[in-house]
């Protein structure tokens, strides 16, 4: 059976590496994108089962990318977890209005990330 896929979208190489490190032992195939534009394009290419999406990114932010994903029938139902900072937490209401599935707050806690990912992957 093909491994299920997770798309990590973040402009921070550190965050991407951390997410990859935390999820390395899980049975998922990981894909990365470094801004919202690339994130939407990668999502259409690789059809992920879950997306972890940063909020503030160059070219296209996470909320706008989320709206693009929700507006496309190919990605409209993919669970998207917004990865926010405490300073952005107030705006997570916008994320829900745009169709996000859940959110986590940086600094990323490995147990929390794994628990949310497993839950949204049905494991």
């Amino acid at each position: 059976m093909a491994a299920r896929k997770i798309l990590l979208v973040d402009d921070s190489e550190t965050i991407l590496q951390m997410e990859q490190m935390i999820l390395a032992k899980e049975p998922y195939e990981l894909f990365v994108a470094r801004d919202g534009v690339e994130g939407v394009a990668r999502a259409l290419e690789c059809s992920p089962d879950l997306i972890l999406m940063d909020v503030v990114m160059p070219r296209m932010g996470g909320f706008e990318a989320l709206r693009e994903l929700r507006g496309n029938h190919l990605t409209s139902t993919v669970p998207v977890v917004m990865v926010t900072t405490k300073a952005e937490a107030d705006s997570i209401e916008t994320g829900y209005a745009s169709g996000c599935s859940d959110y986590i707050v940086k600094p990323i806690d490995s147990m929390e990330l794994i628990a949310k990912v497993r839950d949204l992957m049905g494991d």
Partner: protein
Amino acid sequence: MLPLSTLTPSSTETSERATAYVHPGEVFVSARSHAVTTILGSCVAVCLWDPTTRIGGLNHFLLPSFTGQGLASPRFGNVAIKELVAQLAQLGSQRHNLLAKIFGGACVLEAFRQRQHHLGMKNVEVARHLLECESIPLVSHDVGGQRGRKLIFHTDDGAAWVKTL
């Protein structure tokens, strides 16, 4: 059960209160009147208040139980609830007066909502169980479902408003 409004409190209802925002993994308590906001997905907030002393607070936890790995923080339900009860006691609340409300525990995916043990429901279960162990009456709740929630809780009188997101 006390009524649970789905309306946003009016400006007059919040104007006399200080405001606060509780992030995931935090505990907030106050002996002053506060309107506390938090946003919940699969996470759960347990709100406690003492109607006599008007001391109250809430937590916002992400995972059901600390199992010994890593740091025992209020990110875990069992730690967050004990911490909330302890902090309220430090402020002068009377344990036997405490009342509780629980919010959150959503499961956004239709396919998984049928599972009895999705993360949101596990969080709700641990909250119910620990409140029962602490003999704190649960007077109201708004849990489960498929949508996130914005919660505003008044620490002095226990009033709560939920907006489905």
